[in-house]
């Protein structure tokens, strides 16, 4: 037992003296998380909202109806609107990527509205059968934003419809318009009364709701709740390379043979060689989670203490794999080749590189052959759920320990054959 402690102390001392490697272990994942955070527009942002669709608008009509549409659209937080004077400038800016979608309101917009009759509002084959096209309005986008274009088309048409319907009714059927206006006013009054009642009841509801835990997911941190654990898990497994290199170095130096010639037992020698990397791995994860909280407004979930067993079990399976690679690879080049291949492939399969929820069902199942996936499932429960299933977290920890035991056993068996 004491022998393992001496070997651990020696390796910790050597690791501490190799501070560049230690810095990389911590800084590299932080850099990755920062880059991805920037890519999703959430770097250091507690105020900025989620990505909005940028819409350029060219209004050749410049009359009351077209202005009505624009004022309605601008109220929507989901769209970021900027007006242009001519179609060429708008298209150029869209090509440059400054805008996702461009809306052109033609010079005949108001005239075509004026030509509509009451029946056109409901008729399927009337003057509105081509929706925006019928009104001299066009929406364009790059191929990448084709889906956004469709959403914007439907929105604009909805706003336009809402703006001209009362005017056409008033013009074509005074009586119908009056009765609709009366009915609308009645609905508004009833709604106001209902709102008042709801406000009173709502206070009680808020008090009840406040008794439960707050959701760890907020508009500010939802990206980091996913990418911090994902990249942390991926980089925790990079300890495999560090551990394998240490073992190869020990073998090349001849000190491994010297350790085996000493009275220290083989079992304690392996334990002693493993513990330093387990400690480094656990500290690495903790520091990344602290950095996530400090820099990215990441939440540690409603049960933060439950993160500890997941961190420890993940690190155990990582060092187990480290021992396996260390005792399989014969040279530093092999460590790089096997280690990087293994770590990156496992990260890709498991969902470290893209959220598991985005993966096809089959890939999600295949990913379960990696310890990473079980770690990610546990972190997902603890970091994104308001009511995490602790049973599932425990199951994941169990699976991680099984992985650790398998890797460790095979690694030990391989260690015996090392010379």
């Amino acid at each position, binding site marked *: 037992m004491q022998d393992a402690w001496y070997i651990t102390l020696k390796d910790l001392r050597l690791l501490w*003296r190799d501070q560049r490697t230690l810095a990389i272990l911590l800084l590299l994942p932080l850099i990755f998380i920062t880059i991805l955070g920037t890519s999703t527009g959430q770097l250091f942002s507690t105020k900025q909202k989620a990505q909005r669709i940028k819409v350029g608008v060219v209004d050749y009509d410049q009359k009351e109806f077209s202005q009505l549409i624009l004022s309605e659209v601008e109220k929507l937080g989901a769209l970021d609107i900027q007006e242009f004077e001519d179609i060429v400038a708008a298209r150029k800016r869209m090509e440059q990527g400054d805008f996702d979608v461009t809306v052109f309101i033609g010079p005949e917009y108001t005239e075509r509205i004026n030509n509509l009759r009451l029946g056109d509002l409901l008729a399927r084959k009337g003057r509105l059968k081509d929706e925006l096209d019928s009104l001299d309005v066009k929406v364009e986008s790059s191929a990448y934003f084709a889906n956004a274009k469709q959403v914007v088309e439907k929105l604009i048409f909805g706003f336009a419809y809402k703006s001209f319907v009362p005017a056409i009714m008033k013009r074509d059927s005074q009586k119908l318009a009056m009765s609709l206006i009366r009915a609308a006013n009645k609905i508004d009054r009833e709604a106001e009364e209902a709102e008042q009642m709801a406000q009173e009841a709502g206070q009680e509801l808020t008090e009840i709701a406040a008794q439960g835990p707050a959701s760890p997911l907020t508009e500010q941190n939802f990206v980091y709740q996913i990418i911090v654990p994902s990249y942390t898990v991926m980089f925790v497994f990079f300890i495999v390379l560090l551990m394998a290199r240490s073992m190869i170095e020990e073998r090349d130096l*001849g000190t491994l*043979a*010297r350790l085996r010639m*000493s009275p220290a037992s083989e079992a304690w020698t392996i334990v002693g060689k493993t513990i330093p990397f387990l400690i480094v791995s656990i500290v690495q994860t903790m520091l990344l989670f602290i950095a996530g909280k400090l820099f990215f407004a990441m939440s540690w979930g409603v049960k933060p203490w439950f993160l500890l067993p997941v961190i420890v079990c993940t690190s155990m399976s990582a060092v187990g794999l480290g021992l396996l690679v260390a005792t399989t690879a014969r040279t530093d080049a092999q460590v790089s080749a096997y280690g990087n291949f293994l770590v990156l492939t496992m990260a890709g399969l498991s969902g470290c590189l893209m959220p598991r929820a985005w993966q096809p069902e089959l890939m999600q199942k295949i990913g379960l052959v990696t310890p990473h996936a079980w770690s990610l499932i546990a972190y997902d429960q603890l970091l994104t759920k308001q009511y995490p299933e602790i049973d599932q977290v425990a199951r994941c920890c169990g699976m991680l320990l099984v992985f650790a035991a398998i890797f460790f056993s095979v690694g030990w068996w391989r260690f015996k054959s090392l010379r």
Partner: protein
Amino acid sequence: MSLLQVRNLHKRYGDFVALHDVSFEVDRGEILGFLGPNGAGKTTAMMILAGLKTKDGGEVIIDGKHLEEDPVHLKRLMGVVPQELAIYPDLTGEENLGFFGSLYGYSGADLKRRVAEGLARVGLSEFATQYVRAYSGGMKRRLNFAVGVLHEPQLVILDEPTVGVDPQSRSHLLDCVRDLAEKGVGIIYCSHYMEEIEAMCRRVAIFDHGKILAYGPLDELLDRNRSDLELQVQGWTPAMAERLGERVTVGDVRGDSAVVTISRVDGSAGTNLTQRLSEVIALVQAGAGQLSQIHTKEYTLERMFLEKTGRRLRD
């Protein structure tokens, strides 16, 4: 009873026989020289003794105990100074000794004392707190030695301990080895430097192809009465070579001058050296040649080694 007794040691890797029927002994205070070309089996034998490899047959008895009986106790009795510098370059000399010393169960003041003594023994006290990576080759070799004997073993295996060191470090290391032997430590000294073996060892074992080809006291093996005669002949001709036949071994031939050797040990029974020398002189003179020099050629360890193991290059 000898400190180390190795009897009929056997080891094979698949079809390859690495050690076959190897037996030797080391007494307390004795330095046994291990000689042999690369791949001869010396390292395998040493690795089995050090517990790094298992034997397939035979017996290894150290201080009256079989190797398998109490391996941890025997590891404490044994010290190994490997050919590689098995030390950590990113630890200081003091830390290296401290770490390996702690694995042998030393701690506190006792460990400190042993580390200080170890450093002093190899002349590294003033470099104790320097990183080993900053040491010279000779300093590293000395530290490597100090680590191997820190726990005061009774049996020490030294594998090429002086490879690549300057004469000063070499001399210091050899003094350290002699000092250990004087204190009663049994030593196996493996080296390719014949002069070191001749100077240090009382007994030698010459290995090749997994077997011991020669084993015994150096004085007996290097029988001084086996010295050959070397003759310098002037007026050497091919006809003279033909006439002399197998009576001599022809060495260096330059123009009409040649060096020939008359072996003291000759296969032809009934002819002694003086008789054969007379025959050779007569044949040289008959061929109009003459002897310009005649001297005794010493039977050295290197000669014996090459005779036993051959001159063929090894992998």
